[in-house]
């Protein structure tokens, strides 16, 4: 029957890998919990991040404009052939600025910058008449967004310039460009056609970008290419994970084969253990795929470490077979081993269930993958090993014999002075270490992008002065008008922060389309300050030799223009979003969204120049106490979630100790503590070591402690079971098992991915300690000495 089940597994796996050509998911965000409590916030974040995620930006820099252009052309020529993968965004319209800005220009009396509003309130008439005349007489600076008469005081020009200051990017010769210290950079904007986190996309896009870069370098050898995009990071992450998966997987496999060879001097046991592991992995993959519809790459990386646990069952059986009476039938032997085998499986499952209790979808998947993998490996041992292994199959080696003997050298824990001293020493070591233990839940410490990518990212951020997608204000209101009014209240709080250089600026829909209330106020302000009959126009008329009639004419021109503009309608976000000029602002307006309270309106106020994280509290303060305004800091939010679950997992761990203790108590009664003490002490020692070397504690350390419990209990059970049977081969089982666990989990400490490193490092110390101290907790059984 098991043959049939395994056959099915093989077929399903074959189908998935060969027919469907499945590729593992690599989105690291899939490891994070889905934010469900605030759908509007979630939507806002998706709105900001999804667009950013699909974008690739390349700056092509050269010593002069001509070279930059030819390099950019060479780059684009390569990409143009692959428009199905990467869409290049060279959509600079041929329209003149006038056409482009026409909708805003018509409404110019309604549009003022904050500093213009201040000046209109504070400055005397002479200031404005001087401004108007200076622009008239100056040879090279006439207001060229329309006739002078339409904007005599340069207000609209000033407003447009303020909008232009929201980015340093400028069009030039049909390209977008920025300049840095006299060096021109052409900005190439590209959009991925497929999700950035799909490995297929990465495989298609990364070589293409390489190729385009090579073409640019060939055209202009001195070209400087600065690239950024989520896909680059995702690609680097996947490459590293794949690399690690194969090295760690292969490394642990080779180590284990070597160990088996030393112990049994035969290839057969190796084959058998590999068989159980293989069935485990196949089963885990199949079931995960059926349940989740996909398997995350990190699950597979984590799964590589599954080998360490899955082999325990096989080793346990084989070691016992070697040591058992040759006359004993394999099936009878299995029956005798059954309680121990069941206990170890149950304990391991309890350990992994802790992982499954986290709200991280990725971790749940890893937990399920592991539990299923263990179960299938276990079942393979139960069903097939007795049939395939007979007493004649195995021979004990001298290595096995020697190793079994070494247990004698371990001191047993007894009520004596030496034990007390050891305990005291350990306690002082643990206390010093744990006292120094710090915690760090910062999500940023979980990412280590390659240095070059990071440097590019920083440079690009600086050159483009782009708004950050992870920190922004979310503004809500019952109507679009209310949202805009609330934005305006927020902007008043932000202006002083710009003056203090906390931020370099902000982007808001209300800068383009003020609320109706503000539009009205602006018109009133301009009319009163500038268009009054005896206002600044009078001095201008006197200088120009014009009369009252001219003043009236100017006034009427401004007012009737404002009244008839836009078909007599005020400027609204909906209308503005239909114009070409809105393209750079579309990410700001969420518009009408569904929320638990019914349909509401929402928008984003984005910030530029947030480069000092110490300033974040100031920004948070700015949004406080403003109705409908919420400060959103995704980075600290995720970090606090990680912190929350670190604590939460700590309690789960303690709960698991309690649950396993109950389980063990059912079988071992008052000796149950002997099984749990080694992993508990090892965990304490691990925490102390982390404290002493100054590595801050994070969620992944705690997850590893969970696994130390799972494995440590196995060893305790092996020792305990066998000491019941007075068998010295227990030590061999534990030794083999711990050594291979160290090979598989400990090798994760070499990983460059911080979470895996933290996990592996904890396992390395923890398992080593469990292994070393497990024999000390054996019951003092004098009969063993008889051997």
């Amino acid at each position, binding site marked *: 029957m098991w043959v049939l089940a395994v056959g099915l597994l093989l077929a399903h796996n074959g189908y998935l890998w060969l027919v469907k050509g499945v590729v593992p998911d690599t989105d690291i965000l899939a490891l994070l919990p889905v934010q469900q409590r605030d759908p509007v916030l979630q939507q806002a974040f998706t709105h900001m991040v999804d667009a950013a995620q699909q*974008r690739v*930006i390349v700056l092509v820099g050269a010593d002069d404009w001509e070279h930059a252009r030819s390099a950019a052309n060479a780059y684009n020529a390569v990409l143009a052939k692959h428009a199905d993968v990467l869409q290049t965004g060279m959509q*600079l319209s*041929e*329209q*003149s*600025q*006038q056409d*482009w*800005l026409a909708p805003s220009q018509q409404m110019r009396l309604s549009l003022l910058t904050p500093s213009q509003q201040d000046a209109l309130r504070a400055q005397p008439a002479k200031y404005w008449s*001087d*401004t108007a005349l*200076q622009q*008239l*007489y*100056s*040879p*090279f*600076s*006439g*207001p*060229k*967004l329309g*006739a*002078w*008469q339409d904007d005599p005081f*340069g207000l*609209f*020009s000033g407003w*447009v*310039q303020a*909008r*232009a*200051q*929201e*980015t*340093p*990017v*400028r*069009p*030039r*010769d049909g390209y*977008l*460009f*920025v*300049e840095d210290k*006299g060096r021109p950079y052409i*900005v190439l*904007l590209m959009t991925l056609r497929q999700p950035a986190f799909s490995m297929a996309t990465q495989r298609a896009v990364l070589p293409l970008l390489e190729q385009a870069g090579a073409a640019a370098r060939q055209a202009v050898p001195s070209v400087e290419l600065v690239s950024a995009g989520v896909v680059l990071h995702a690609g680097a992450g996947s490459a590293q994970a794949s690399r690690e998966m194969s090295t760690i997987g292969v490394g642990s496999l080779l180590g284990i084969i070597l160990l088996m060879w030393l112990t049994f001097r035969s290839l057969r046991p190796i084959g058998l253990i590999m068989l159980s592991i293989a069935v485990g992995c196949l089963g885990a993959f199949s079931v995960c795929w059926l349940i989740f519809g996909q398997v995350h790459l990190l699950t597979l990386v984590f799964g590589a470490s599954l080998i360490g646990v899955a082999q325990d069952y096989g080793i346990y059986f084989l070691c016992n077979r070697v040591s058992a009476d040759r006359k004993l039938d394999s099936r009878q032997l299995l029956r005798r081993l059954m309680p121990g085998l069941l206990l170890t499986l149950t304990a391991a499952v309890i350990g992994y269930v802790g992982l499954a209790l986290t709200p991280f979808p990725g971790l749940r998947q890893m937990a399920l993958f592991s539990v299923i993998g263990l179960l299938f490996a276990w079942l393979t041992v139960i069903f097939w090993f007795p049939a395939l292994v007979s007493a004649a199959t195995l021979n004990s080696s001298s290595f096995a014999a020697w190793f079994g003997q070494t247990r004698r050298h371990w001191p047993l824990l007894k009520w004596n002075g030496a034990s007390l001293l050891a305990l005291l020493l350990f306690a002082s070591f643990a206390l010093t270490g744990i006292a120094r233990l710090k915690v760090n839940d910062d999500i940023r410490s979980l990412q280590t992008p390659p240095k070059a990518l990071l440097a590019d990212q920083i440079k690009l951020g600086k050159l*483009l002065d*782009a*708004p950050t997608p992870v920190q922004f204000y979310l503004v809500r209101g019952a109507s679009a008008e209310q949202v805009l009014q609330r934005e305006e209240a927020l902007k008043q709080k932000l202006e002083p922060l710009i003056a203090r250089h906390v931020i370099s600026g902000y*982007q808001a829909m209300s800068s383009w389309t003020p609320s109706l209330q503000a539009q009205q106020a602006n018109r009133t302000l301009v009319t009163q300050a500038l268009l009054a009959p005896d206002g600044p126009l009078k001095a201008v008329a006197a*200088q*120009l030799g*014009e009369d009252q009639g001219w003043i009236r004419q100017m006034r009427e021109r401004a007012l009737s223009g404002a009244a008839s503009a836009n078909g007599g309608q005020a400027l609204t976000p909906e209308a503005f979003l239909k114009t070409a*000029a809105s*393209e*750079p602002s579309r*990410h700001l307006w969420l518009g009408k969204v569904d929320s638990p309270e019914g349909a509401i309106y929402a928008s984003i106020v984005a910030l530029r120049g947030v480069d000092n994280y110490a300033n974040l509290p100031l920004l948070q303060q700015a949004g406080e106490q403003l109705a409908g305004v919420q400060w959103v800091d995704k980075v600290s939010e995720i970090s606090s979630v990680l912190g929350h679950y670190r604590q939460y997992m700590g309690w789960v761990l303690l709960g698991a100790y309690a649950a396993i203790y109950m389980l063990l108590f059912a079988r071992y009664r008052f000796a149950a503590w002997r099984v749990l003490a080694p992993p508990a002490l090892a965990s304490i020692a691990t925490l102390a070591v982390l404290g002493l070397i100054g590595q801050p504690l994070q969620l992944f350390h705690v997850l590893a402690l969970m696994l130390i419990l799972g494995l440590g209990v196995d060893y305790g059970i092996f020792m305990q079971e066998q000491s019941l049977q007075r068998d010295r081969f227990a030590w061999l089982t534990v030794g083999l098992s711990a050594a291979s666990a160290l090979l598989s989990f400990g090798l994760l400490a070499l990983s460059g991915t911080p979470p895996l490193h933290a996990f592996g490092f904890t396992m390395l110390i923890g398992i080593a300690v469990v292994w070393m101290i497990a024999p000390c907790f054996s019951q003092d059984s004098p009969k063993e000495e008889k051997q």
Partner: protein
Amino acid sequence: MKAHNAFSPRSILMAVLLAAAACSAFAAAPVDKIQAMLARPPVLCGRFDQSKQLVGIKKPLLSNGRFCVVSGKGVLWRTLQPFPNTLRLTRDEIVQMQGDRVAMRMDAKQEPVVKMINGVLFSLLAGDLSQLETLFELDGSVTGNSWNVALKARQPALAKAIGTLALSGGAYVKTVTINEASGDRTEISFSGLQSGSSAMTAEEGAALE
């Protein structure tokens, strides 16, 4: 990252540059000739008289003052009549002073095209036709010691924004005429030109530092 189109409302020349056309191989014979006629002193100062005729305003707007063009440094344009106003263009900024008040300042850091504007303005005043040729089609004629050049923007959007330019001169540029599409017309003539180290007053020298 968001790419705005640039808005550079303060200057005709800004618009010129925003729509800058590709350089063509065109170089009419007279241009080379004119180029050869022009003296290109490192410092050139003199008086300017400007007349602006604007649509909707009856009287032409007359102004005059002094200007200096210093190679490698920039341009100082000081209107004295009808009221004092100073325009200073250096490598990194354009500053307009109204009396003691800074009426306008454009920084090359914030507005990258500032450098290009300055370059073109410099070429215009110094008569560096080869530079102007990247943006304009030049059509020139030479009679005796004097020359005329008409400049037509190479791109329609630019032509719409600026109209046409005309330069005339001999060893130096003597007049600049700007005919805008809107019908506004500006004529500037230069006189009392001096070159050499004594051309610039100490005050002017300090203003350009």
